[in-house]
């Protein structure tokens, strides 16, 4: 992808910027513990956790690894794993 002169970007193109690259810790859901309550979806500030076919899944393309989901999970089903780049 070429950069545009002056960094001009068209509207509705923020999905082209995968902010998952900012992450240094990755939330991993342990589905044996997960009760499917959806608190993680509610607290995610980047709106990257959704119910996909009955299980909560994280879109790692945009997850910045803030850790709110792991902190708020009532059953400690989410672990933050350091990602070495």
């Amino acid at each position, binding site marked *: 992808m070429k*950069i*545009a*002169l*002056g*960094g*001009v*970007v*068209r*509207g*509705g193109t923020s999905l082209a*910027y995968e902010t998952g*690259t*900012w992450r240094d810790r990755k939330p991993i859901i342990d589905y044996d513990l997960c009760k499917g309550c959806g608190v993680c979806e509610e607290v995610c500030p980047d709106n990257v956790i959704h119910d996909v076919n009955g299980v909560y899944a994280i879109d790692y393309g945009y997850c910045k690894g803030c850790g709110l989901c792991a902190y708020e999970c009532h059953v400690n089903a989410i672990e933050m794993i350091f990602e070495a780049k």
Partner: protein
Amino acid sequence: MGDNGKTERVLEGSEAVALAIKACRPGVISTYPISPQTHIVEALARMVVNGELESEYVRVESEFSAASVLAGASAAGSRSYTASTSQGLLLMTEVIYASAGMRLPFVITGVNRAVSAPISIQPDHQDAMSLRDSGIIQIYVESSQEAYDTHIAAFKIAEDPRIALPVMVCMDGWILTHSYERVRLVEQEEVDRFLPPFKPIHFLDVNDPKSWGPIADEDLYMEFRYAIHDAMQMGKKRIKEIFSEWADISGRDHGGLIEAYRTKDAEIVLIAMGSVAGTAKDAVDHLRTGGKKVGLIKIRCYRPFPYEDILKAIQDAKVVAVMEASFSMGSEGAIGLDLKAKLYGRSKTPVVIDMIAGLGGRVITRGTIYKIVEQVEKACESGAVPFEPYWMDLKPEVLP
């Protein structure tokens, strides 16, 4: 060169600049008063009120806003202009960096004046130097005539799609802005032919929403910065072409990126920027009559730095005396730093001596320049090149 039947008038420098701006038909003018720049925007205000100039004239509450209005107007596709000086230019700094990054091609008159503290309203170049690294193109002028001609060229340079950067035309406060000189004006039709309406590369459009320079971290920021530098380096050739195109129309040639004055066979070459170049030319003429091989390089375009042209003009010189109207505290003058960096590692380079002169408007006469030449001759004879710059006409007896 003929004068093509041009109108000739005796004008205050500020009025000459305002007439040049009027001829460029800016869509938006943002203004905030500060001496010695105010006469320019006052003259433009009169033109707008009298119906001689159709332009959105926005009087804002600070220079930060004045620059922000320029950025917005330019992004909206309007040719836009402001003038400021000293503290005002410093207050614009944040917006100028952003505007260069967003490649917004407006024009600013940077009326040169010392920076506080203490307050001096007299001319030196410290204010413009504070914007040295921002990505704004800087062109310094020697006379009101050159100011008039350069402002018209400045819009064409800024708006060239290969350059697309803001341009600041720097002129010494009071000495140029408030003195009256003969100025030849160019017919409106000729200016219109030279400077067609502004065609922005991108512009704000509700039907096609866009953001300017939102974010590019470690993955792309460096490429954006390199692109600005590349536009400047590549732009050197284009700037020269635009200058010479205007010279053909106006019948006045002020030179390219530099003006080399009697540098052929010169052993001592002075380097200067701005109105002091006129004094220096007189001093050079006098010294030449006395048999001294002295010449002058007037730097017109300071950013991009025209080192190729300067190195060519000083290749046979023994010594180069750089007259600096600004100072990088704890180091030395900015032009000397630029020049020495480009001379490093080359064979057969002249000695470069930094001469700090004219800070806070301390008057530079022909006598000052004779003293500078004496000083560098002495340094060359003794073979000791000073590490520290000379501070011309400093009064050590009053130091605390």
